């Protein structure tokens, strides 16, 4: 015999809630316990690897705890009142006692939330200050990040390095910190630099200079992407941050500072590069190419990906990209170069020599 309608409704609700809770727990486990699927980790904010991200993580535990308690309390009251005060079968349809309010109860449930808010705010203010007003220790690496539609320009003014899309920073030892401080600017529209495991995001806004910092404790590759809608290819403006050991980083800097590698077999390609409009947008240091509109290509082959992280840096991909960028990233500001086969082969050979 079927249970009465009201009880079925109630049972259904409780089952639904149980499913949801189970689902949440599963989700939480997957968030926190996901194994690395690739050579980069899933960029979860709950797996911080850098001081600012860790401060935020610790604060978020407090916030989740407080909101969790509030949720459980209020939800229990709601569930209880639905269960206990529902109209039963056979009810005489008389009206229940008409209660208009209660000053004591209302005062209590006003004062308690105000206290909760105070506690939350004080904890938050501390973290805001510790992140935003952090001093720069002596070993700081300074990087200027310039956001473009749809790629990232990285300049290391103190080290004389210019690169694009893949940021290299040294790992920071807590006893002798070497954080990286980023100065954020934009060449066109609004962008936002977000690598969840390293720090919260900060926007890149034209005609404005912003600052943020990262302080990674573990070497590895961390991924992120532009987090402020900037136009058609906002989705394909990916970020790759390589946290290197100090030796690896020094090695990388040394290599990046050299002018373009000369290579006899690529002279033809260099001619194509320098006589086509490539030089209007791209820089290859040590040559006549000094365009600033597109990424610096001096050490193109030192990067693992091209077109702002969306494809591996292979010969095939490079060729397809030059042939017609808009077929891969529609709305990209690089025009199709319309080269013949021979010129294309030469050009790709030249680019592949730019180590």
């Amino acid at each position, binding site marked *: 015999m079927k249970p009465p309608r009201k009880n079925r409704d109630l049972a259904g609700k409780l089952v*639904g809630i149980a499913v*949801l809770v189970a*689902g*949440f727990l599963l989700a939480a486990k997957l*968030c926190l316990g*996901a194994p690395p699927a690739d050579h980069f980790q*899933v*960029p*979860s*904010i709950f797996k911080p690897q850098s001081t600012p991200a860790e401060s*935020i993580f610790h*604060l*978020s535990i407090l*916030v989740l705890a407080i909101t969790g308690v509030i*949720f459980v309390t209020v*939800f229990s009251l*709601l569930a209880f*009142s*639905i269960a206990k*005060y*529902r*109209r039963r079968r056979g009810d005489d349809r008389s009206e*229940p*006692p008409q*209660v*208009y*309010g*209660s000053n004591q109860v209302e005062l209590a*449930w*006003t004062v308690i*939330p105000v206290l909760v*808010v105070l506690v*939350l*705010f004080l904890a*938050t*203010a501390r973290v805001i200050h510790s992140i935003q007003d952090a001093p720069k220790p002596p070993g700081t690496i300074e990087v200027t990040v310039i956001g473009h539609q749809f790629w990232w320009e990285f300049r290391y003014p103190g080290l004389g390095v210019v690169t694009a899309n893949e940021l290299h920073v040294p790992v920071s030892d807590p006893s002798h910190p070497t954080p990286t401080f980023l100065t*954020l600017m934009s060449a*066109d*529209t*609004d962008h*936002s630099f*977000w690598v*969840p495991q390293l*720090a*919260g*995001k900060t926007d890149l*806004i034209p*005609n404005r200079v*912003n600052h943020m910092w990262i302080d990674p404790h573990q070497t590895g590759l961390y991924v992120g992407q532009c*987090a*402020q*809608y*900037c*136009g*058609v*290819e906002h*989705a*394909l403006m*990916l970020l790759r941050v390589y946290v290197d050991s100090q030796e690896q980083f020094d090695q990388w800097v040394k290599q990046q500072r050299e002018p373009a590698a000369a290579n006899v077999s690529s002279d033809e390609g260099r001619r194509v590069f320098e006589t086509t409009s490539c030089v209007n947008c791209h820089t290859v240091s040590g040559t006549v190419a000094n365009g600033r509109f597109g990424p610096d290509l001096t050490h193109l082959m030192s990067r693992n990906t091209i077109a702002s992280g969306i494809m591996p840096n292979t010969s095939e991909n490079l060729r397809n990209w030059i042939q017609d960028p808009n077929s891969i990233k*529609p709305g990209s500001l690089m025009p199709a170069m319309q080269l013949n086969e021979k010129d294309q082969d030469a050009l790709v050979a030249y680019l592949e020599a730019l180590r």
Partner: protein
Amino acid sequence: MASETIAITPAGTAARPIVERLHDWVVTVDHKKLGILYIVYALFFLVVGGIEATIIRIQLIIPNNHFVSPEVFNRMFTMHGTTMIFFVTMPILFGFGTYLIPLMIGTRDMAFPRLNAFSFWLTAFGGLLLYLSFIGGNGLYGAGTAPDVGWWAYAPLTSRAFSLGHSTDFWTLALLISGIGSIGTSINFITTILCMRCPGMTLGKMPLLAWLNLVMGGMVILALSPLTAAQIMLCIDRYLGGHFFDTQAGGSAVLWMHFFWIFGHPEVYILIIPAFAFASEIIPVFSRKPIFGYPVMVAATVCIGFVSFSVWAHHMFTVGMSSYANSFFTITTMAVGVPTGIKIFNWIGTMWGGKIQFKAPMLFCIGFLFQFLIAGLTGIMLGVSPFDWQLGSSYFVVAHFHYVIVGGILFALFGAFYYWFPKISGRMYSETFAKWHFWLFLIGFHLTFDFMHVPGILGMPRRIYTYEPGRGWEIWNLIVTIGVVFQITGVLAFVGNLLWSLLRGEPAGNDPWDAWTLEWSTTSPPPDYNFATIPVVRSRRPLWDLKHPEDPDWKYE
């Protein structure tokens, strides 16, 4: 003195030609017809906005999908947001207010009936103008196609340099026009509520729906105006060579953000406060008790109205404001959560000790309570600015605000639909159909919006037309999209119920819910003149006083 309705002679009820009846609807200044026009208009755009959302979700169901091009996707999320806020939620809430306020305060129409009609048609025209943007093909790059700048239209993306053609202008002008319509409607609400209440109905005795719409009206005239101003500035930039937001000339992109969010944040309270009003009318009736703590409910709402104007930059925590500014907006954001949260306690307090009936309006209001609680808590989380530095502009935020708007506002709206449908149409809806609607939509809502929080936590930003595999986002996007199917089915059940009930529903009678406010004292549907004689009231629940002369409210208030 009795408050009977005046008998209508047979001559008055003879069916008139269809052209005449349609003309009546077009030229009407009757608040009831205008209310229905607003609601039907909004329901149409709810379907359109839902289609746009479905396209978005299909594109995101797997990584590197090619269901639509990036250009189309960007138009979809822009149009989805703009449509849902300006041409669904605002009109539908205005519609319910326009229909109900005169009835609930015991008067015959709004203060300015012609302004009422004018405001509706302005809003309607705005929506049509926005959708006109789809027409006009891809000839000149960008010209004549739908706006694709996001519903906040951040500068300098909206400048002539980055938004070629006229798509942004469709956005600007459509919202400028409908914004003026909204301001007109709010002037009407405020004036009606302050100047046309029936004798005996002091401000302390009017239904909460009237109070909340009064606060909302005040907020609209102060919040829509900054948006109007900003849009005029944008037009000046785009057409007269102005430099308000022209960063190349020293202008500030952040200034647009400030102006937009000074509108944008109060706007979301403008949307939720009428939903609170529905809950405040429905929950008491189906718990068989008066609202718990009426004075505090009013005070809390007025408080929300004011404080909500001080929190706007919590949408700008990542913009690089100083730590002092970020702290200020953190504390105000948390502060506004206090009066909001208190209301949840008052609703639970209303249910406590009552005799709850789980009819469709109440089911949806219970869903509203549960979901608004969660939405409020994720809002507090986002108000903690460092947490927002991680989760802002990510799918966590998208999940949060859909939790508020769909889980809160839309659920309360469905409740309001079922509650007042008998009054508006004169017929009862099918309770079985409604329960199917509720459960299907509930499952779909939770599948989509619960699990949508996860990709945000895993680093997925908003407004991306695709994503690479290996980031851990695939399974969550799949589940989110599956939930859409249930929601669509639920909405179909809803529309089916409305149509079927309009044609075949049982006659409802004046007062099918045994309720207590004035609209239930007149016929269903009410006559053109609402009441034969203007009522005179003595308490907040005039019909309770009538039904319980031995125990009237005015002895206790």
